[in-house]
């Protein structure tokens, strides 16, 4: 989770990713941010988030995103 928070803060240092849970709904993260995040996650977690997982439910909070990563790690 630490690594993830680091990735996110790198992109948007002004956002508190521990509490924020409307990242997509409130347009805090845009489409470019998302693919940067996915790119980094692929690097650091060796997990590929494919396009079908790019839905608000998975990206609205750091926690939801981490859940996704864990699920994908499980499957791999």
């Amino acid at each position, binding site marked *: 989770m630490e690594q993830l928070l680091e990735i996110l803060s790198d992109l948007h240092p002004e956002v508190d990713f521990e509490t924020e849970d409307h990242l997509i709904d409130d347009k805090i993260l845009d*489409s470019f941010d*998302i693919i940067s995040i*996915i*790119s980094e996650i*692929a690097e650091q977690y060796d997990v590929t988030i494919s*396009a079908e997982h*790019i839905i608000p439910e998975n990206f609205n909070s750091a926690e939801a995103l981490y859940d996704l990563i864990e699920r994908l790690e499980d499957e791999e």
Partner: protein
Amino acid sequence: MLFTSYSFMGFLLVLFCLYYIIPAKHQWKLLLLASYIFYFLAKPIYLIYILVTTVSTWFAGIQIDKVQNTQKAYLAEHKADLDKETKKQYKASMKKKTWHWLLACLLFNLGILAVVKYTNFTISNINSLVQLFGGKPLSFINIIVPLGISFYTFQAMGYIIDVYRGTSKAQTNPFRFALFVSFFPQLVQGPISRYGDLHESLFAEHSFDGKNVAFGLQRILWGYFKKMVIADRMLIGVNTLIQNPDRYSGAYAFAGMLFYALELYADFTGGIDITIGVAQVLGVKVTENFNRPYFSKNIKEYWNRWHITMGSWFTDYIFYPISVCKPMLKLSKHSRSLLGESIGKRVPIYLSSFIVWFTTGIWHGASWNFIVWGLGNWVVIMVSQELEPLYAKFHNRFAVKDKFGFRLFQVIRTILLMSSLRMFDCYRDVPLTFRMFGSIFTKFNWNVLWDGSLLNIGLSALDYGILSAGVVLLTTVSLVQRTGSVREKIHKKPYWLRAAVWYGLFLCVLLMGAYGIGYDASQFIYNQF
């Protein structure tokens, strides 16, 4: 049928009446019939194209669903006795099957779209090359471009991708699916709906809800107001300015640019208002396509507010898949090691955006104008991305971010920027567009803006008065809309006030609409030259 024709209005009248007379369970069938009649009346032969796409996509959807159901059943049955590795392999092989169906469907239908829309464009480009080497040019093919093919194809392809991804279940009833693809209000200019968003209200049974029907009719009226009073009137002036570029350069081109910005907005959003209004009267919920786009403060925001369904379609079905696919991630990795971290991480963004904006451009039309327009947007977006740290520094230093003046500046800047890019819509070819844009800065004929020259392009002082009043009305409505639905607010007023407002709007359309003899834009051009 044009939205602004008597026949369409008569068509709607008959449809609305029948819709609430027949038993509710047959309503979707009536819509299907109406949609096919609508399409047939445009040109009977179009039906072949839409049927082919409908049948092929419906069939592919069912096949994918079958595989997915088999997979689900199998895994449920053998939950205990399969190990992880076998499960993974099984899923992979199933995925391959569904992938084949998806690929076949996409290639087939996008292939039809490509051939129908882009063959002659390709040939003309090949010819340019061939003629360079003194060869014989190919002849163009005589091919029909079915009404709305770009819209319904994308709507159907979105569906099949959603089925593949498991986001939607396939529609097994071919007639229901046919309605989804051909729903007539959306055929002409969208919005491009997602199956998940549309299907429930599209197939549901609807009882007559007076308020909903009234709101729908009000929205339709508002759409007609925008189209007939503002757009069609503005178009007369726009046509004069852009059809004679040699005569109307410099400040004229600037005026034309802004006039076109108004005309396109009124026409496009007006048409969408009619579309969504018609759907609302029928009890069908269609996604919004515009969200006060001219209030945007930068280009990114603009593309979240203008032609929303197109933008999100390209994002979900082209941008994301391309930018997170394995080859792209590999490329990104390599670029990082080869060209350094900062360049490397930009690669997926730049390359994917380039592809998206190239396809967005060409989706709009088979010409270099649209391609350059699309790439122009790409350049602006990339540049603003790069400038972000600079902007952040600026805002740290000067606390202007929330000041009204600064926001107004941002809004005006965005309008000017997007209007400039849209000049590619107006002129014959790319070099001419650049020339005309350049002339704004080199030809100092700004006096034409206030010395009455603009009264000689087909619009009278009264017309400008009406247009100005129209702009004020549009802006006011948009401002009010920020705090909630305008129709709801009017609905709360006493009956006679409401009736007066809507009847007044109707009279505006009836009296001031730029329709009928005497308003033929081409007529004016003919008279002038």
